[in-house]
Every structure is written in structure tokens, then in C-alpha cells.
């Protein structure tokens, strides 16, 4: 096993906080096993930094199984690294080769200010969801689950949109720092389901308005978001959102203020 271990050079973005300018710092990562995940490799580097009384590299992470959406590294020019359809925590070191230099940066977007080193503030995503990413039902008093029949294809398609983990890779990948893939995933999920119809058009408008207010850019159909999304959310979602948004703007003006849920 050990003969396969790699020695790597890391160029890591270090930044004390949002107010202080950051810079790349070079570190050696020696004896890295190909079975390690990328974050475990950083753990090893951090342990050695702590032993030298140097401040460890700060990065966001939690579940380490590709579902919480907390990890967020921009590795060699790609959000979540070079492999498709995975998060950074699922990226394993066998993807790299001995002697390689790896560049690690935070998500770069005006709406995602750096907190420290590689961790950014993604609370803008929460505020977009708070603006309308829900169906207005209270606990209790709802119909029996099987009273709402939903065609399997619709349920499956809604599920595909619902798998978004809110990591922000779409924004990081986009030259305009657009959040449209993220926003449209929720708009689509709820807009396709019968339960989501009553607020379908107002939801699209409220969420888009908040997205704009947060300073995310517009979509110019480059499709980088789709290519980099760890959950393979498709651009079709953006088309659906645009449809609902424009329908509301053109024909359903009266719905604009109905989102009082």
C-alpha cells in the first residue's frame, strides 16, 4: 500500500477574514495515500501545521459523504475538483498523481464573501429559500398522503430537482456568479408538484427578486453550472423557472403580491 503514497505540493488560498486581503501559500503534503479523501489529505496537512504551532487551513465540511453541501473547495479550477458529479469530500486522492501541484481556492463570488481561508458565507442561499422556497402549509390538518396522486414521472422529475444540496458550486463555476441553477431547482421541484401549484408563480417571483437583491449575476447559458453540479441538476430547471417567472410577469401580474403564506 505505502509504495503508492504520493508527495504533493499545495497552493492554498489563505485569508484571515473578509476585510483582509488573501494570498496563496505553498505547503508540502507528503506520504498521501490514494485511499484518502481530499479532505482527509487536508486533515493530515493541518495536523502537521498544528504540531508546528502554525494555524491550520480553515475549510467548511461536515457530513463527509456528499450530501450536506457544506464542503466547497475550488480545486485546480473546478468547484469540487476535476471529477464530475461528486463533492469535494467524495473526491479521493487516487485522482491525483505523485509530484502534482494542486491549487485550492474558495468559491469566488461577490455574494459569497470569504469568512476565513477557504470558507465562504453562503447565507444568501438561505435568504433566497426564505423568500418563497416552500409550500404554505401548517403542521396538521393536511390530507391523507395518498389522496394526492402524482404521476411517477412527475414525482421522479421533482425528486431530481430536489436533490440540490445548496453547496454553491453552480455559482462558483459561473463566470457571472449566477445562482439560477440553485434557485430554479427549488422553483421547479415545487412548481411541478400539484401541492405547489397555488403559489407557483408568486414563488418564482419572490425567489428571483431575492436572488437579484443578493447580487448574483444573470444566466447567459454557458452551462458551466450544469457541468459542475455535484448532483447533476440540469439546465432544464432554469428554463422552467424562466417560464414561470415570465408567465407571472406577463399574464399573472395579480399574483405578485399573493405570497402571504
Amino acid at each position, binding site marked *: *500500500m505505502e509504495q503508492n503514497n504520493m508527495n504533493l505540493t499545495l497552493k492554498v488560498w489563505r485569508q484571515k*477574514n473578509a476585510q483582509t486581503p488573501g494570498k496563496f501559500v505553498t505547503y508540502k503534503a507528503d506520504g498521501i*495515500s490514494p*485511499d*484518502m*479523501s481530499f*479532505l*482527509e489529505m487536508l*486533515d*493530515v496537512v493541518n*495536523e502537521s501545521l*498544528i504540531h508546528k504551532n502554525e494555524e*491550520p487551513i*480553515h475549510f*467548511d*465540511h*461536515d*457530513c*463527509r*459523504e456528499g*450530501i*450536506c*453541501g457544506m464542503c466547497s473547495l475550488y480545486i485546480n479550477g473546478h468547484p469540487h475538483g476535476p471529477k464530475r458529479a461528486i463533492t469535494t469530500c*467524495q473526491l*479521493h486522492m487516487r485522482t491525483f498523481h505523485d509530484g502534482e501541484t494542486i491549487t485550492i481556492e474558495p468559491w469566488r463570488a461577490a455574494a459569497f464573501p470569504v*469568512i*476565513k481561508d477557504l*470558507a465562504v*458565507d*453562503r*447565507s444568501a*442561499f*438561505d435568504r433566497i*429559500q*426564505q423568500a418563497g422556497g*416552500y*409550500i*404554505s*402549509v*401548517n*403542521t*396538521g390538518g*393536511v*390530507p391523507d*398522503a*395518498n389522496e*394526492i*396522486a402524482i*404521476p*411517477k414521472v412527475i*414525482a421522479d422529475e*421533482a*425528486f431530481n430537482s*430536489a*436533490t440540490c*444540496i*445548496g453547496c454553491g458550486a453552480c455559482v462558483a463555476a459561473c463566470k457571472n456568479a449566477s445562482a439560477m441553477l440553485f434557485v430554479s431547482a427549488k422553483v421547479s*421541484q415545487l412548481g411541478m*408538484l400539484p*401541492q405547489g401549484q397555488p403559489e407557483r408563480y408568486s414563488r418564482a417571483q419572490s425567489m428571483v427578486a431575492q436572488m437579484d437583491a443578493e447580487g448574483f449575476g444573470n444566466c447567459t447559458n454557458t452551462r458551466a453550472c450544469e457541468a459542475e453540479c455535484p448532483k447533476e441538476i440540469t439546465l432544464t430547471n432554469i428554463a422552467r423557472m424562466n417560464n414561470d417567472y415570465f408567465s407571472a410577469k406577463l399574464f399573472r401580474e395579480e399574483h405578485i403580491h399573493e405570497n402571504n403564506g
Partner: protein
Amino acid sequence: MSLNAKTPEGPLAEKWNKHKFNLKLVNPANKRKYDVIVVGTGLAGASAAASLAELGYNVKAFCFQDSPRRAHSIAAQGGINAAKNYQNDGDSVYRLFYDTIKGGDYRAREANVYRLAEVSVNIIDQCVAQGVPFAREYGGLLDNRSFGGAQVSRTFYARGQTGQQLLLGAYSALNRQIHHGKVKMYTRTEMLDVVVVDGKAQGIITRSLTTGEIETHTGHAVLLCTGGYGNVFYLSTNAAGSNVTAAWRAHKRGAFFANPCYTQIHPTCIPVTGDHQSKLTLMSESLRNDGRVWAPKTVETAEKLRKGLLKASDIKEEDRDYFLERKYPSFGNLVPRDVASRNAKEMVDENRGVGASGIAVFLDFADAIKRLGKDAVSAKYGNLFDMYYQITDEDPYTQPMRIYPAVHYTMGGLWVDYNLSTNVPGLYALGECNFSDHGANRLGASALMQGLADGYFVIPYTLGDYLATIGPKPIDANHPAFAKTKQDVLDHVNKLLALRGTKTVNEYHRELGHIMWEYCGMARTAEGLTKAKGLIQALRADFWKNAIVLGENEEVNASLERAGRVADFLELGELMVDDALMRNESCGGHFRLESQTPEGEALRDDEHFAFVAAWEYKGDNQPEVLNKEDLNFEYVHLTQRNYK
């Protein structure tokens, strides 16, 4: 101290309804005069915060992650149980109740479990109304699958991401209340203490993980929805950030900690590959619907496999031992988790384990792929197969998965009564954070059920009774208890920051994990546990001398966060060992080698141990005091669990 579970009188099936009627109500106009603190935003926390805000209470919700959506409920894979009987296969509230009590090896409270089964049906309705995209049949109705410990199909699911979908449902309900201003959300904020005023919980002390600011928050009640403590083992399926700190600090302020030794070791996880490993990944129990668990019949074959001289697919049918199907013909691969885990360990102990380390058995889908086709298998489990491939670089469509048990869930937790109140009035515990419903072993797909039952359908009723009793008078933030508790937190933080030794916090954590896994894991003995106690005490003492904690309080400081959590695990670990040593019987996930049937199954001692062990903190390095709540079974008959 005598523990009053406040279980309502009357027949089992009528207790909850009757109790709801007897609970005091808070008039709608008065609800806005109450502040409720909810710590944690997983299934229990998010559902409680949203439901209480909908009722009109002012809620302050806290999570240490950057968003409430990241809580580790998100990672639950397989499904959620509910007694809907949509499959017409004989399910009922009583059967779900019975399966859960039996699955827990008769160490849970009957009335709580019955209520859980009763409200399970409402949960599914609620989630569908929120737009949770559960799996459906072609006719448009909901699909179900089977889980361990049950002979009916009652598990609702959303591919292998059920926890994610349920949590995003609860998160959306929470977001709606944040939008309406009824919930104030604090992210990247960690609770470090609970403030107890005249015996009642009236607030918490938090630390901002971005600025280090230590803050005081007042509330008429405090709800801890902070999950389990599986990370005491260092390696577990929990998220890296999952910790016991909130619950443990509450314990040190007087809340009893119940059954800490009841931990669930999940049978189907991806095996450990090396020392670098930071966590273990679960492969959902739902895989046992179609996957067959086996090990080679002989040590010789196993050795060839370990050396890479043979592949699993080379091994002939007659040289394989499908040990669960062989030993438990009626439940087969779907025996409960504790039983499946012990049997996998037995294979490895007999030197029949596979993989390079020899610490694994196979979970094989070859038959399912033959029977259903690759596409059908992929539709059901595709994301799990992909996850396995990413981690191991092996294709489970062509070679069986290698699996081994790993720490997954903790049935123990803060002691609560029927109202989910701890013994400290005003302090509640919901979801995995409490001990209440799973006894000594949790059945698959029941954690999601319990988290949401507690948050959506229990606490909105029971909390009102307490709030009506204490009245809406504002909480006095100037009471000296607040300043005193805040100072205690600051002192603790400074004590940690003063540690400039030679060993990293992570190294201590890993060492603690080794001790816990070795002596308080799948098989426990009096001798081993006694030894573990000494080892933990020594490790803890060493931590407070030689650990390295870098940086300052007034900044983002992961080193400090980690140190606080590991310091608490180092205390909890000893209590777990004490509890395991005291419980001189085997039950569910607690397996004492001294207490087993001739067939090697867990042998309970109902005469001496049919009680909940609720431990009372008595001060630093003082032995904790054991309080007992006797478990009375009026409806189920206690028998040796039999899945044969």
C-alpha cells in the same frame, strides 16, 4: 431521586388522546408573549421550531453549521416508517408499536412507543403536503419498502436520500417562519451552556463560530434537538461536526443522562482502510432488501480472497456461507441491526473475513441483478452504488460490496418524561438527543420517524402545558445566574486556549475512539470496561496537560471548537463505560459477553435490569449517581427475541 415519567393512565391506545385533552392550553393571543429556544435544526429541531412558530410562539433557533439545512439528518438514507398499511400486508399502529418494542429488546417505555407509532401516519401526510418527493408507484400512489426487524413493508422513501428530502421539507417550513419573522435563526452558533434559574431552564449561552462572541439568550423553555453522541467513537457514520456538547453541558447543569451505553453499531458500512480515515460511510439498510450477506465457508478461501488470489465472483455457491439466511430463516438478511452486526463480527473473529484487512463481509447483489436487471437495481440504489464506487474504487454491480459494522446511532441520551421534558423543568430533549423510544436497539427507518414525531406532533402539545403553568412573564436576563453561567463558559474557553502542549486534539479524539471501540463496542466485558475506565481517566488528565489548542477566542477557530467537543467526549466516554459495566446483562446493542444464550444471542436479565438507567452528575471527577425508572410492560410479553 424518584423519576416520574408522567405516563398517562388508561388503556394504551387512548393514552395520548386523553393526555392531549388534559394538557393545559396557551390562549392564541398569549402565545406571542413566550420565547422558545430551539438548539439544533435537524429533523427534530427544524420541525419543532417551525411548528411552534406556526402556533404563534417566538422561536430562536440555533445551529453550528452555516445553514440549518446541513444538519446531519440530511444524510439519512433508507427511509421512514409509518403504520399506513398502504400495502395491505397486515400492518397497524399496534404492529409498529410491537415491532419497535421488540426490536429495542424490551428496554423502551410502552406508552412512548405506542404514541410514536400512532403519530407516524400523520408524518407522511405532513411531508407530502410540504412537497417531499417520496417514491411512487406508476398509479401515482406512494411506494414502500421493507426494513430490518419487520415482516411488513412500511418504509416510505425517496431513493437513497430520504433524510435529505425530509429535512429539506422541515427546512422549508422553518424558512417560511423565518420569512414571517416568527423564527430568528442563528447559524454558525454553538450552544455552550444552559442557564438554570431557580431550578428552571431559562436560557442558553452561545459562542459565535465566526466572531467568538459569547452571548446570552433568554427563553421560557429550551429545546435541545442536538442529535446523538456517536462521535465519541471518533470513527462513526456521523458528520464531522456532530457532538455531545449541548446535551453534556445540560447534563452537568442537572439533566439526567439515560442509558448512555446503548449505542447502535450499524451492520452495513464501508470498512476502514487506514489511520487517515476521518469517518465511516453507511450503506443503507434498505440494501438488505435485495443484497445477500455472506462470508466464505472456510478460512482457506477467506485467506485467498484477502491476498487477492481469488475474486468474490470466483467463489462457488457451495463455498459461500449466507450466514444470516442460514441462522435466521424467517427474517433472513433483514434481521435487526444489532443481530446482523454481531454475526458479521463473528465471521471476522472466525478468521473468515474478507478484503485486504480481513475485517469485512460481503453484501452481494448478483442475484438481485439477475432477477430484476441492472437498471431496476440502479433505480432503487443507484446513488448508494455510486457512493460506494467513489470511496472504494470498486464497482458493486460486478463485485459484491465489502461491508462491516460501524457506530451509527445512539439510543441513549437525555432522560425525558412522556412530555419530552428532562428532569430540569423547562428543558426539553427531542429526537436522537433524548433516550426515549428505541430501547436498547433502534430499528431501521425509525430515527426519522421519531425526530419528526417529536417535533411536529408531540412538543407542540406538551410544551404548551408547561408554558401555561409558568405564565408569560418575561424572563429576567439580569438574574445573576445568566452572568455567572456566561462567566463559567468564558473560563472554560480560556482554559482550553491556555493548552499549548504537544499533542493535537484530533490525536486525543482518535485515542478515545480506539478505547471505546475496543472495550465498549460490539462486545463488552466487566474486565474490559474496568480497564477502559482507567484508560479514559488517564487520557482525560493528559488532555488537560498536553493538548495543543491554537489561536484566540475572537476569531474563527476550528481548533478551539474541536477541543471543547473532545473535552466533553472524554467525560461522556467514562459515563458510557460506567453504564455498560453496571448493566450486567445483554440487551439489543449492548452485548455483554458474560450474558448470552447458548446460540450466542443477547440474553436479558429482566428481573434485575428492566429499568432505565438515568445518571445524575455530581461534580467534576465525582462518580455519577444512578437513578432508576422501572419499565412496566402491560401490553407486550417479555420474551427472548427470536428472529429465526
